[in-house]
């Protein structure tokens, strides 16, 4: 097997113009335009905004209806097979075989990517070690915890040495500790040279991981920029002053740093020593309110973003 650099290796990671996709009469993605350089990027949006569909289109899983789409310079419809050797998809639902062991899962994926048995074995061992799964390598996946499963799932996607890794909601359903551990892995992965395109419902996650954040709402891109640019549009933290009944008396914008909050509070304390004070950061609901003019339906998913600190 000889290695040839993909013909378009200096092409942008993603280059999309006018991408639309419908399922039957239900239009899921509408006229998307997006260009991203290599790197780690997040697609942020609530349930039902079309995140998974976009990732499925880009990873060759489902064909798009219209528009120009290039992933690593290749068309996911026309150059399907060539692109499939360069990308990997780790979906929302674990794609690992529960009845096989970790090693067996890895070897299976390695063989399917076309690696020789020996190469697959070496790669499998290395990746399992890297994700801290060596000890559990020969146990059936059915016995793994949610975090271990997710790690194995991602590791299995890496065995074919993808240039671009799609992670669809990689941390949904994980506890805080596993989520943090996975964030570390994803950051390390990006440093190793692979590009990552992940979807998330959590503003905080996009903020922690991504160079560029693309906000999707109702199948349309409503914002696209760095975390700092996005926050600028949304507005920063506020200090809220309440009366005894909890009604907001006043809201003071703050940069959120201890020094800035302390400066404001000194002034408040001097004027109204008994008032109740809360510092709050913008929630995902507010992001969407600001960007789309309507509240995002994030139901029970906003705990992560709601970060109210009673002062």
């Amino acid at each position, binding site marked *: *097997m000889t290695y040839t650099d993909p013909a378009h290796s200096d092409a942008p990671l993603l280059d999309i113009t006018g991408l639309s996709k419908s399922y039957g009469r239900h239009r899921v993605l509408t006229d998307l335009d997006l260009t991203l350089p290599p790197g780690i990027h997040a697609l942020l949006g609530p349930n039902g905004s079309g995140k998974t569909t976009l990732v499925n289109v880009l990873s060759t899983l*489902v064909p798009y209806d219209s528009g120009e789409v290039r992933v690593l310079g290749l068309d996911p419809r026309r150059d399907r097979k060539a692109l*499939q050797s360069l990308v990997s998809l780790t979906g929302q639902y674990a794609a690992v075989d529960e009845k096989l062991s970790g090693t067996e899962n890895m070897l299976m994926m390695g063989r399917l990517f*076309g690696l020789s048995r020996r190469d697959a074995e070496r790669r499998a061992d290395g990746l399992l070690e890297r994700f801290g799964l060596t000890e559990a390598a020969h146990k059936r996946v059915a016995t793994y915890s949610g975090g271990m499963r997710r790690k194995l799932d991602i590791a299995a*996607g890496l065995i*074919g040495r993808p240039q671009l890794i799609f992670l669809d909601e990689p941390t949904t359903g994980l506890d805080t500790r596993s989520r943090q551990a996975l964030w*570390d892995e994803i950051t390390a992965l990006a440093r*190793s040279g692979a590009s990552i395109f992940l979807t998330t419902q959590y503003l905080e996650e996009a903020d922690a991981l991504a160079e560029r954040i693309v906000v999707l709402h109702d199948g349309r891109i409503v914002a696209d920029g760095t975390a700092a640019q996005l926050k600028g549009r949304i507005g920063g933290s506020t200090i809220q002053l309440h009366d005894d009944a909890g009604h907001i008396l006043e809201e003071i914008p703050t940069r959120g740093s201890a020094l800035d909050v302390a400066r404001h509070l000194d002034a408040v304390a001097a004027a109204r020593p008994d008032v109740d004070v809360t510092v709050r950061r913008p929630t995902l609901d507010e992001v969407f309110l600001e960007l789309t003019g309507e509240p995002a339906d994030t139901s029970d998913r906003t705990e992560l973003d709601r970060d109210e600190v009673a002062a």
Partner: protein
Amino acid sequence: MTTTTPPQEAEAPASRGNGAGALTGLRVFTGRSLKHSFRDAESLLMAILLPVMLMLIFVFIFGESIAAGQGGDRGDYLAYVLPAVALTAAGFGASYTAVVVSDDMTTGFMNRLRTMPFPAVTVLLGHTASSMVRNLLATGVVLAIAFGLGFRTEASAVELAGAVGLIALWILVITVVFAVLGMVAGSAEAASGYGFVLLFLPYVSSGFAPVETMPGWLQGFAGHQPMTPIIDASRALLDGASPGDTWWIGLLWCGGFIAVAVWLAAVIFPRKVAR
């Protein structure tokens, strides 16, 4: 950052995977399905126990009275019921295919495979191949019990091979039918539910009692349903007798079922992407 991550991707790029061919896919997935089958102790036990139970029930409980009606004895009925028991057991064994296919289709597993550079349909072929292995083992068990219970035949090796070949072909038919059901069904439970009807098919054939002994309204179906010529032909071949026309009628049925199932799979499989 607290991970102890050495710089990776340092290996020679020469070993990048460019995708497996259909043969590798078939080998990998047959191995996977066989591992599933042989690790699942309960279904393996069922696969062996079921033909044993069926054989004992029909020969020792119903055998004497059914055979008496035909002027024979228990030994005659053993020879008569042998192909039907093998095929009934294989039906149960093959219904497992619907469950595993449905499992693969409704979880993220198939989605990942579809984004990989090899023909994802080999997953189905792997399940089919392992169903053949499992159910031919069960057929072997049925034959062994029959010999244990005193079944003897003058049939030539060619005739025996013909009988086993026909049985194997019908196992393939029900396996692919169940695979299609597994693809269409929304869940593994639904898949085995749909297949339930198929498991009763052998009882309404010439397998357990002669069609002539059934009420008239049932004879039309029982005499002309696909299992009847296959059972009649295998029974004749196992006995070293001439199967007459039954063998090619059976082959036609099998060919038709397989062609339709493969066509359905080819249409449905690419469209059934889990969302």
